[in-house]
């Protein structure tokens, strides 16, 4: 408890806290405010700086570069969180579709000997537009839009009409 110098207190006296104690409180408060201010400002500051990967990435991806795929060949690429299949058919045109088989979700592949899309798990077959033509698959593969821009081949989900 705070006391005056001669050990007595008078009613109505506003007792000043001892100097060290007041300093301690001020230092504590000051440090606390500063610390919390930094703890708030630092994340906000980092937040404001744009990250390196500025594109959202999953609606439209670069599946391959021009010249990467030979005629009559295919390539698996990552599309969002699922695999996609990019095919360059014999005429040079590009086709893209989901690579997840609609039967039991195995990853399909392009068969250049059959010129069709094939699923190794149970011999399911799809044509070059993704339509299921033989074997167990019950539904076609979702087809994607392909756009060649300069050296890059972009694959994009079909826009909702």
């Amino acid at each position, binding site marked *: 408890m705070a006391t005056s110098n001669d050990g007595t207190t008078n009613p109505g006296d506003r007792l000043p806290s001892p100097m060290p104690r007041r300093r301690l409180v001020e230092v504590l408060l000051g440090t606390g405010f500063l610390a*919390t201010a930094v703890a708030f400002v630092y*994340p906000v500051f980092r*937040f404001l700086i744009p990250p390196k990967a500025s594109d*959202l990435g999953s*609606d439209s991806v670069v599946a391959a570069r021009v010249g990467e795929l030979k005629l009559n060949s295919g390539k698996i690429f990552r599309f969002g969180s699922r695999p996609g299949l990019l095919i360059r058919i014999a005429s040079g045109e590009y086709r893209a579709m989901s690579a997840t088989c609609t039967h039991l979700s195995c990853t399909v592949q392009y068969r250049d000997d059959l010129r069709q899309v094939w699923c190794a798990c149970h011999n399911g077959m799809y044509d070059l537009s993704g339509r299921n033509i033989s074997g167990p698959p019950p539904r076609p593969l979702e087809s994607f839009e392909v756009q060649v821009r300069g050296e890059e081949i972009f694959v994009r989900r079909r826009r*909702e009409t």
Partner: protein
Amino acid sequence: MIPQRTMYNWLDERLGWDALIAPLRKKTVPLHRLSYWYFLGGITLFLFVIQVLTGILLILYYRPGANEAFESVQYIMTQVQFGWLIRSIHSWSANLMIFTAFAHMFSVLFLKAYRKPRELTWVTGVILLFLVMGFGFSGYLLPWNTLAFFATKVGTEITGQVPVIGKPVMIFLRGGEEVSGATLTRFFGFHVAVLPGLATLLILLHLLLVQRVGISVPPKLEMEWDANPAAKREMKFFPNFMLRELMAWYVALGVLGALAAVFPWNLGVKADPFVPAPAGIKPEWYFLFMFQTLKLIPPKVWLIDGEVLGILAFGLIGLLWLLLPFFESDQPSSTKRWITGVAVFALAYGAAMSVYGYFAQ
């Protein structure tokens, strides 16, 4: 001279600053057993400010639009530095704010702080509560995930059931017949422009009224203090109560940070309008009591469709809630007790239905 003094004088000479804040210096807060409830309004305001700040930060990266919204939120959560923190704080603070808004409303109700001359404060407050729920409803859709999509579908569907005006209102809300990208854009506009504008106006009004009329005291205590002014205990708002409120705000900040770090808000699955609704779609918890009530009403009550009756009933209750203080002025004490009874029932019913709705299949 100390620089602060110079700046202060400079402002005062041009704005009349001293005269403006003089009432604040004199403002007092009554001290009694139930004084802690007075914090709730301030905490709600604090959380609102947090929402505005985090919301502004999120807007720098969020893209409204059916084919980009989900991805942009995913981007914020995974690519942007501390994006997960800002977004999670925004989502948690939203829920906390709605909770404190309801708690503030109920505390005002039970402490009877809505009585004359504070009727307008109550009215602006209830409108703010509706706005806050509108914030919740519109904001929930913005990440464009499955749960949000279908919750919005169901919610706007229910609005469409209101006779005569329901359908046009539903089309206005949805930006079309169905919930689509147009709905998203519209809700975004409501959430970041319309509602904040209205809310800011009403908050200013609400605060102004609180300043002008002062902090209310429960009726019994008021009578005691009127009879015996010496018994009155008060605390200066500035700096004493303000400092205590600051403590409460820091606690709220700590809670928010912990929630955001330990339970980050999830992304969900991107909405696909062609997929059938998952079973057991429910709205967010603050709508559960209404949702569950509507589910329990039988399909037909006399000749009226049960759901329509429920919606109209809630609409009527909302209106009566808004006008509550006007039922009590200059009424005998029996009416006042009756209103307290209604308040207790409302709280119990709301809580029970929310819990029921949460656990129901």
